[in-house]
């Protein structure tokens, strides 16, 4: 409880000005994870300033999703430090880290398939709903007020994500693109300051991914969001990200602005082996 209070305090003191560009929301130092003898990630350093939009790219098996799993607490790091929003979150269980303001989406969509669209989003609000089990059983005022508030906020999110008319349908019945959108809406319900997106436009066509890009940009401004995203669609990453980190074999091989990354020989080598065209070329998933 004490920590929750601390979070609320931090939120109220930093408030809107947490968008200040020098506020470091995430700082990762020397993060490493081994599975048995396999070093999935090693020497991973990353600093995210509030409001930044950073892309994490790299060939298959480079350890991108492992980094996400480490940041969210789903894997325990073998070594290294993760500071999030000023707190050392290293070794905390995932649900606690979520309470500090981190949310993610998944590469292979993980919605609550049999629950309705509305209830999927409502689960996101769970940790911010503060009535107890007894309040629910006895239908006390705290329950009614809180549920009304959650229902209203859910409605707003569904409107924002253009899912309002699907609210009563089971999540599994949605078409693919809408499932992706619902997953982001659900993550937004958790009230994140840092949103981790694992291949948000995978399997989407050009126009769908353009819409999503506009939506992400809008979210970023409206919710003071910091975003870290994994994406194979290089065109998408180059268009939306301000900074790109390239991972290969579990290590950072390059980091910088999209233009710098494009011309970095190490990146070209990692993607295409020695020789070949630039990352903008057909070797990557950019051709659609």
């Amino acid at each position, binding site marked *: 409880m004490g920590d929750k209070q601390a979070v609320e305090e931090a939120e109220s003191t930093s408030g809107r000005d947490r968008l200040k560009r020098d506020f470091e929301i995430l700082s990762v130092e020397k993060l490493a994870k081994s599975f048995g003898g396999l070093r999935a990630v090693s020497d991973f350093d990353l600093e995210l300033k509030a409001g930044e939009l950073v892309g994490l790219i790299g060939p298959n098996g480079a350890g991108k999703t492992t980094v996400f799993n480490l940041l969210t607490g789903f894997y325990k790091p073998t070594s290294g430090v993760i500071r999030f929003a000023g707190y050392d979150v290293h070794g905390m269980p995932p649900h606690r880290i*979520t309470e500090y303001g981190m*949310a993610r989406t998944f590469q292979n969509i993980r919605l*609550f398939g049999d629950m309705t669209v509305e209830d999927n989003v409502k689960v996101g609000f769970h940790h911010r709903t503060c009535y107890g089990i007894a309040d629910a*059983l006895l239908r006390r005022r705290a329950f009614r007020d809180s549920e009304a508030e959650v*229902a209203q906020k859910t409605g707003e999110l569904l409107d924002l994500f253009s899912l309002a008319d699907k609210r009563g349908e089971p999540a599994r019945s949605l078409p693919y693109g809408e499932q992706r959108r619902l997953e982001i809406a659900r993550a937004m319900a958790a009230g994140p300051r840092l949103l981790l997106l694992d291949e948000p436009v995978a399997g989407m066509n050009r126009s769908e991914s353009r819409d999503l890009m506009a939506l992400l940009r809008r979210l970023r401004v409206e919710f003071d969001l910091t975003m870290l995203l994994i994406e194979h669609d290089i065109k998408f990453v180059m268009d939306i990200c301000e900074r790109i980190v390239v991972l290969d074999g579990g290590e950072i091989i390059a980091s910088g602005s999209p233009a710098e990354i494009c011309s970095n020989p190490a990146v070209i080598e990692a993607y295409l082996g020695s020789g070949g065209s630039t990352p903008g070329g057909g070797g990557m998933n950019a051709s659609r």
Partner: protein
Amino acid sequence: MDFAVHHVTYVCILLMLTGGLSLIHGRTGLLSIGHAGFWAVGAYTAGFVINRLAPDLLAADATAGSRLLSVAAFAAAVVCAMLAASLCGLLVGVPCLRLRGDYLAIATLGFSEIIRVVIVNAESLGGAAGMRVPAVVCVGDTRRFVFAGIAAAGAAFSLLMVRNLLSSTHGRALISIREDEVASQLLGVNVTRYKVVSFVFGAALAGLAGAVYAAYMGYLAPREFGFMKSVELLLMVVLGGIGSLTGTVLATVALYIIPEALRFAEWSVPVWSLTDAGWRRGSVELAELWMVVYAIILIVMMLLRPQGLLGSWEISRLWKKPNQRPDATG
């Protein structure tokens, strides 16, 4: 008529059990085949408390005061039974959190067998011969009606509590664990805590069922709380529809009534058996074939409708519009 009242009471006791189990298995997705164990804990705790507090308060010459005391003893027994059962829920829940699916099922089965074996070997609980529970609340002709009322109230209470829990943020957290434990964890649901909550809650309701059962039957036998009872309860939840409380209620009533009705009807079916003298025609009562019919129903259901009779349909949909906009209500 007397029989009908008995059946109503028994079905209500079953509803308290399946209501709790539908929370554990149906919503949270924890496969438990030891629910009868919680029931046994509740029943024997209540029996023990009543034996201690009200050995023979309701003798023929009972005064109004001792009648009142016997009601108080029953109330105390209910509270103790629910506490003891939920404590067992906690004891089973905590170590079993890392288990899932088949492993959890085996652990819960082990728990209920431990309970049964302890009871069979405990002298103070009557051992294998069973435990007599003195009459409480009331005796005489009205007794069965009073207990039908108590059981109905208990069932209504249980179902209401389950429904209230499920339609809250805590209920959604439970369902999200069944749907995708990983995603649920990463959305801020304390999965560990909610699994324990689910076990404790379901066990408490089983404890309530046990207390009512003990006081109503007046006699407890360990064999009543065996493995098959747990399976029967689980089937009621599964057949009714994993996500539907309405389905659980319907399946509980149906699966209790069908075999009773078959027994009552005394229908028999012809069977042929191979003897030394060739095929011989005999007959078997349909009621005795119930387990076969049961198995066939199960297989057909699993093939045709794996989500259960009602899936996740609830009777409340009849009066609630699914696409109701919440801002219109609030």
